[in-house]
């Protein structure tokens, strides 16, 4: 079954607009379908076919040069093999762990994501979550809401966002442009009087903060770890028990990146036993399942993979994806390519 095009646009079909394969609709496409209508390309909607995906690809996607993917429709080596003409993969998300970057690199397939439009919103959320945990805002809110204030009066006081608050970053291997995300967090935290430190695969000479060559050492010197790197084979479970114990009993973890960067089982143990001070988490290893022990803890703030998103961010992501696709088909430079470092 071909893409379903409105009648007026069937005329364009005859002009052979290049096709962009979409295996399953990314959430943004479902929410803002109109934004993905372009005069430069058309969508090849695999999910509308009754054929199994492999068969669909073999039958219809032989000359497809571009793919719009998402977490629900990962671009694996297997999929890539079924797309002999593919030269460009774009995702509407900031995360790229659902794309096999090694395979793309090997075959010279360009990759673009939408990290840039989420940087500021992600940084806002990360800082908001941190203040919430430190100052027990959500706990206080619940206390008041339950009508406990008149009876109890006293209240356990939160701990200050202290002046020497160290923050960690981890650089992912692909894109130095995603540094924008980390620096967005740093810029905000500096305005609060925090001291920023970072970890990365290699030190970045243009970054004004002290560099730590491994996460464990960084954790030793930090009060707060803010995880905002990409999920890769190297960063999976990078925040492990050793790192968390190094962070210590007063330490806080903030994660707005990907759940699997943290060894979640270990983190739960550390939180339950008070080996770290608290956590603010927007992402989890098996969303939407959240470890039950976390639901009871006052020193943990949980949000359902939403904190980073705003309507404006979503719209901007749509625009960016479309702009990248149009640039690709016009042989112009991509707007937000991932650059190999």
């Amino acid at each position: 079954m071909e893409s379903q095009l409105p009648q007026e646009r069937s005329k364009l079909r005859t002009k052979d607009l290049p096709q962009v394969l979409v295996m399953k609709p990314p959430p943004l496409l479902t929410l803002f379908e109109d934004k993905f209508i372009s005069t430069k390309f058309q969508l090849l909607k695999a999910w509308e076919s009754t054929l199994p995906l492999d068969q669909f690809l073999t039958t219809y996607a032989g000359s497809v040069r571009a793919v719009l993917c998402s977490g629900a429709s990962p671009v694996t080596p297997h999929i890539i093999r079924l797309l002999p003409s593919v030269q460009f993969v774009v995702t509407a998300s900031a995360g790229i762990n659902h794309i096999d970057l090694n395979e793309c690199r090997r075959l010279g397939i360009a990759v673009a994501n939408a990290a840039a439009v989420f940087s500021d919103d992600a940084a806002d959320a990360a800082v908001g979550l941190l203040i919430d945990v430190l100052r027990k805002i959500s706990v206080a809110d619940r206390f008041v809401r339950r009508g406990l204030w008149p009876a109890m009066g006293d209240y356990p006081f939160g701990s200050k966002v202290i002046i020497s608050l160290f923050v960690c970053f981890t650089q992912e291997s692909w894109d130095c442009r995603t540094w924008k995300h980390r620096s967005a967090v740093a810029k905000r935290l500096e305005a609060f009087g925090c001291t920023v430190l970072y970890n990365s695969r290699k030190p970045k000479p243009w970054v004004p903060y002290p560099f730590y060559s491994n996460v464990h050492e960084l954790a030793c010197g930090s009060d707060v770890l803010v995880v905002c790197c990409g999920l890769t084979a190297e960063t999976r479970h990078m925040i492990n028990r050793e790192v968390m114990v190094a962070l210590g009993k007063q330490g806080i973890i903030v994660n707005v990146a990907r759940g699997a960067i943290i060894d979640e089982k270990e983190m739960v143990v550390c939180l339950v036993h008070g080996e770290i001070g608290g956590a603010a988490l927007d992402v989890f290893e098996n969303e939407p399942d959240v470890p039950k022990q976390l639901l009871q803890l006052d020193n943990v703030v949980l949000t359902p993979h939403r904190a980073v998103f705003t309507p404006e961010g979503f719209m901007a992501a749509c625009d960016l994806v479309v702009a990248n696709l149009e640039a690709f088909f016009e042989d112009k430079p991509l707007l937000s390519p991932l650059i190999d470092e």
Partner: protein
Amino acid sequence: MKATAMTSENQSRHSQSDLPYVLILKPPPSFLLFGDHFLDSSKFQYLKAYESPLPLPQFLQEHAQSVQAIFSSGLAPVTAETIRLLPRLGLVVTTSQGLNHIDLTECRRRGIAVAGAGTILSADCADSAVGFLIDVLRKISAANRYVKQGLWSSQGAYPLGYKLGGKRVGIVGLGSIGTEVAKRLDAFGCSISYNSRSKKPLVPYTFYPNVVELAANCDALIICCALTDETHHLINKEVLSALGKDGVIINIARGPIVDEKELVRCLVKGEIRGAGLDVFEHEPDVPVELFALDNVVMSPHCAVLTTESFEDLGKLMVGNIEAFFSNEPLLTPVSLDG
């Protein structure tokens, strides 16, 4: 009024009972957290009114000649009546950021010095204000509740929050706290404007001569001013209406600065977007209509209190009192002019 000077030679010869007295009316929160000796000094002693069975006026009359200073945490007001019963009173110190619990007019009339928290709490206040703003806009506490009730797996996605960057933030009262708030929100890409008693010449933010105009040009109002006769119910129906249905209000200052009945009405009717409130008109009573609202974040007048600030404030207060009794300048005097 001169204080009784305690030189170090004198001190070693004098017993505890010769140390000057500082009156405490109600136990400060720091005593509950850190014990009764948290604020001890070798240069003065405390007279704890709350440990006496006598009613306060009688207690004060009995000790009228001994009390030279009062330490108030903010829980107990220092009224004109109290002041009049203490002819030797020369100093009132408080650890509260706000001063509305002290009759400043009476202090000025009697030439009684007042020492406050200075700017020690400003950064903490600002941190909280920003935390509240992000929480309300991004629905952090509401989402936290949602997840902890197990609704993410059963009911799926939670509504999106609102973007912070690019929002126009109006600061009501650009003092020390307001300035710290502005500095932080600047880094988030907000555009800052303010209303204050007077325009600040060297400040890069837009000044509005009145709060209604400020509200009309903002997406978020952050209350950072003191409670005085002029600022009582400053945030009224007109201001809230000007702020509008996309507007958010954050109050970490004093409840009575906002017309609370009107605020609750606006929130319930959806006439403003949301609110973050650490203070209320009649603490500890909070309007129950707010309990059902997801677009409101509340805390029991504690947003600014942190373990570290208790320690810092404690040292500051003791330092002020010791300076007073040594006839030295106060560390954080409050100007009683105007």
